[in-house]
Each structure stands twice: as structure tokens, then as C-alpha cells.
């Protein structure tokens, strides 16, 4: 593991260092350090207002950092456009399902296929066999294989969450960020989603924000606890759950 190649292999895919953002003097994220390895499923937990969603906003470029750096595969994300960050391989799911209600499931997925992304590319985009196959494959993955023609606005809440995850899978991102993917899901849907996450995390890194502890246990490799914009604890689910500081601010409630 000390050889240069070994070092290279273990280099984190995402390295956040000294990340700070302040809104009118309030530091929502305060000198944060976070490293995510290849093929890792990391869950970030923390009480409301801990800065979890803000961290995702900072990574995907929705919010600009006040200071610090975010390195993704040796590229500095804090200076890049949102769409360039996506094209570099970062996919992000929003807290409330963010899908195109007026389009069909098929069109929703097709919209995220990484081709025809420029104005004229979109104008002359052709629905090729490759697109069809990819859409069908992803739709089957997210349990919506039979609902391709359904108008997306008519899906159930859980199905909308899956559809948005599917839209991210279409991009085949190296880093997948999910903000509360099982919020509002039934127990059986949660189990299906855990299964889905374990399948799709093969070959990519996944960063999840979640409150549901059962769900966290079923997917997390490592858990990071955020509190007041800082990392309070990090480690396995078990070690975090037994950490007295964590119990005090979060789990003890």
C-alpha cells in the first residue's frame, strides 16, 4: 500500500478541505474536512440545521463556498459551473423529488442521457438504439420498467424518488449524491430502495443524507455526523452510535 500506485488507488475521489460558507455571518459550514473513497457509500447524518444539505449544495455548485476547496478527481469544483460539475461526473438528487411532471417516465430518463446537451445537439438529438436500451435498463433498475409511458406527475411519491435516482443513473456519475432518498416512503419501499442503492453503488461513490437509522444501517459503509457545520464524529455506524458526543446532540433526543 506504500507504493505510488497503491497510494493513487486509495486517493479519495472527493476531498473536501477547510470548506466554509457563511450566510450573513452565520457559518452554515465551518472549516469542514471530508474525504470519500472510490466505491464507498457514505451517509451523512446530523440534526436539523447541521449543514448537511448545504454541503451537497456546495459540492454541486448550487451554493458558492466562502473558503476552502472541493477536489473531485483532482478538479477544483468550487470554481466550476453547475453543468460542468455534472459533466465531470457528479450527480445530485434533491430533497423533494425533482422530476418533470409534464413529461413521461421515458422522457424524464431520456432527458438525463448524457448526449445532446448543447443547444444544437438537443435540436438534432436522435433517439438511438443506445438511448432506448439505456432507458429500458435504468427503468428496470428503478422498478419502473412497466411505467415508461406514464406521465411522471401521476407517479406515487416513492416512485418519483426512484425516478429521480434513475435520472441520475442515466448520467452514470462517479459520485452520486442523494438528499433523503427514502423520505416519505413506505417500509417496503425503503427496503427496495436500500436494495437499489446497494446495487447501484457498485463502481461509484455514493454520498447520502438520511435520517432513517434503519435505512442508514442497511447501506452505510461509514457514517459522518455533522453538527453546526462541523464534523462531530466519523466512523462505522456502531462507533458513531456509541459516541457520547453524538448521543448528546443527536441520537439522544
Amino acid at each position, binding site marked *: 500500500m506504500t507504493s505510488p500506485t497503491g497510494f493513487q488507488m486509495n486517493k479519495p475521489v472527493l476531498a473536501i478541505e477547510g470548506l466554509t460558507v457563511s450566510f450573513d455571518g452565520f457559518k452554515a459550514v465551518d472549516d469542514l474536512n471530508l474525504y470519500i473513497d472510490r466505491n464507498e457509500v457514505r451517509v451523512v447524518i446530523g440534526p436539523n440545521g447541521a449543514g448537511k444539505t448545504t454541503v451537497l449544495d456546495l459540492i454541486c455548485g448550487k451554493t458558492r463556498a466562502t473558503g476552502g476547496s472541493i477536489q473531485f478527481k483532482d478538479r477544483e469544483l468550487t470554481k466550476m459551473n453547475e453543468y460542468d460539475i455534472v459533466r465531470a461526473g457528479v450527480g445530485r438528487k434533491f430533497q423533494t423529488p425533482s422530476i418533470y411532471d*409534464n413529461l413521461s417516465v421515458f422522457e424524464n430518463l*431520456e*432527458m438525463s442521457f448524457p448526449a445532446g446537451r448543447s443547444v444544437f445537439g438537443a435540436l438534432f438529438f436522435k433517439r438511438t438504439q443506445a438511448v432506448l436500451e439505456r432507458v429500458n435498463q435504468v427503468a428496470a433498475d428503478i422498478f419502473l420498467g412497466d411505467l415508461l409511458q406514464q406521465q411522471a406527475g401521476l407517479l406515487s411519491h416513492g416512485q418519483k424518488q426512484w425516478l429521480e435516482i434513475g435520472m441520475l443513473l442515466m448520467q452514470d456519475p462517479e459520485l452520486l449524491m442523494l438528499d433523503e432518498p427514502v423520505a416519505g416512503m413506505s417500509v417496503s419501499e425503503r427496503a427496495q430502495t436500500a436494495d437499489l442503492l446497494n446495487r447501484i453503488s457498485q463502481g461509484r461513490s455514493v454520498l447520502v443524507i438520511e435520517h432513517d437509522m434503519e435505512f442508514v444501517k442497511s447501506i452505510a459503509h461509514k457514517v459522518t455526523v455533522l453538527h453546526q457545520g462541523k464534523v462531530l464524529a466519523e466512523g462505522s455506524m456502531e462507533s458513531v452510535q456509541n459516541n457520547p458526543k453524538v448521543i448528546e446532540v443527536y441520537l439522544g433526543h
Partner: protein
Amino acid sequence: MNALNKMLGGRQGVVGLLILATLILVVFPLTLDAFRLNMVGKYLTYAFVAVGLVLCWGYGGILSLGQGVFFGLGGYCMAMFLKLEASDPESTKIQSTPGIPDFMDWNQITELPWLWVPFHSFTFTVMAVIVLPVLLALIIGVALFRRRVGDVYFSIVTQAIALILTVLIIGQQGLTGGINGITDLKTLLGWDIRSDSAKLLLYFINAGLLFGCILFGKFILNSKLGRLLMAMRDKEERVRFSGYDVAAFKVFVYCVAACFSAIGGAMFALQVGFMSPSFVGIVPSIEMVIFAAVGGRMSLLGAVYGSLLVNYGKTYFSESFPELWLYLMGGLFIAVVMYFPNGLAGLWESHGRKWLSGVTRKPATVIASPAPGITPTPALADKKAASPLEIQP
């Protein structure tokens, strides 16, 4: 062939297009006298703007309340060329400076301003009709959309631009003809555009260009770009975080709408024989939005019907009850917004089609039902292409 069929919107799309084409190209020319037909031609020049608004407002969610700017720019470019042709030294020899437009002479201008010089060339004029408005739209679009100015703020800025341009035109009387505009346009490359035969030919050229714009609009809406526009209207953030440069798409559709408006403006100058600031400002710009709203902001063909009907109503009522018209227009807009947000096309979708299938006693299901279990592409194409007055629920 298949692609062409898809572009036209399937069988029903073709039928809708044919009905409108028959109305405009056959029924009107056969039933209306030269004066009324010229009037319809004028209404159809507004339809260019309305069709552009369907793309940028209906589908793109960008409500521009300043499309008169582009209509006016296109119109003024054409009018400048025609005015120069009408101002040859022979017919302006009584002026103190012969060979320049009459209004310049009245304003003590003794030399043709440099801005006017290139408009001696017809090729330059035709290019300017398209390029100048598109360039302006590009500048406005890049400046605003890159900064994420949207919704009502964008609308307000477009209104301000319409106002600025009107004030500029009126203020620079020697350059633009001021409030009277550019009048007394006579010939196009020596061809008398005031004769009945010329007006008839211009009517058909105008209609042909309008159908060209509608077809281009259909091509855009049936491409992935059309679906992206709707997606952006629904969830702009999701589109942005799916790797698209949202601003670029907005700029594009805004430029297309500007281009359509400009063609309409140029055809207006040719058919009506003058151009004035009263087609540039805030009021005409809002009127054009009403045409699109009444016709149906999600329907390219509906926009044409909307322009025809509202303008017919305007002519009819302002001939009979001139003081009532403005109230009627306002009431109409309120009614559209409150009771039928998808305009005439929406009413046709929800009531007219049912009524028609009742009359012809054909079960509607025969047309509408996509066969289950087939591959997504054709079924989807059918579904998307299902209506001549295309409405998304």
C-alpha cells in the same frame, strides 16, 4: 418520411395544419375583397409574434412583454429600404436636399445619416431584418439569463426595453421619422407594392413565411430541445443539475421568437406601407401576448387563430363601438387567464374534439388509444403527435 411525419405532428397534426392552410391560402383570398384581405395579411404579421411567443412563453416559460421591439426593428429595417427607394432625387426634387427621405428634409437634415446608407442595398436589408433583432435578443438574453434573471423580473426588463426603444424612435425625429414613423412607402425594387396584385402576392408570401415559421416551431418542439424547454419550465434546477446550460437554451428560444417577430414586422411594412413607433411600445407588445394567450399559449396553430380573431374583433368593435374596445380587450385577457388558461386551443382540446367526434359518430378511442405493449418510441411519438392544437396537460 417518418421524420417528416413526426415533425408535422402525425395525422392529426397534418390535418390541423391543412385546415389552417386552406383557410388562409384558399378561403380568405376567394371570399374577401382586396381591402379586407390586406387587413388579414396585416393580422397575420402579428401571428408571427404570437407563434414566437408560444415557443418562448408557452413552452419556455419566458414571458417577454417587449416583442414589439423585434417586430419594430424588423419593420423599420424594411421600411428604411423602401423609404430610400421612394426618395429618389427625381421624386424629391422640391426638397431643399433632394434624394433623402422627406421627414429628414423637414428636420433640416442635409445629408443621409450613416445609419441609413447600407439600407440602399436590398440584400443588406433582408439580412438586417433578421440579424439586428436576433443580435439584440442575444445581448438581452445573455445579459439577463446568465445572471438568472427570470419570471416577472425578465418581463419588466423587456417592457423597459420596449419603452426605451419607443422613446428613442420618437426622440430622433430626423433619423426615424419620429412619432409618425416612416410613411409613403411605394415600391420594392421598382415593383409597386400599393397595387392590388402586389398586395395579393405579398399576402401569399407572408402566409408562406408564416407557415415556414410554424413548421420550424414544430421542428423545435418535437426535438429534444422542445422537451427540455418544458422540463426547464417545470424544474429548472433539475435541468441545470442534469448537465445542461439552462441559460443557453433560454437565449436560443428567445432569439427564435425575436427572429419570427422581426419577419412579421418586415412583412407588415411591406403590406401596410408604413412603420411607426405605435407597433414597438409596451401596449402593442402586450396586445401580442394577448393574441397568443387567446389562441392558446401551448399551440402554434392556436396562436394564428388567436391573432386573427382578436384583431378581427378589434377592427369590428373599433369600427362600431370605438370606446368599448379597450375594455373588451382587457376583459378578454382576464377571462382567458382565469377560465381558459390554454386559450382557444385548450377549449378545442377539452370540448371541440368531443363535440366533433359526437357529430361524426366516430368513437374517439379509435384515434387516441396507443396499442399496449409496443416499444416506447413509436407509442411515444404517437402520443406526442396526437393533436393538431397540441396541448400538454
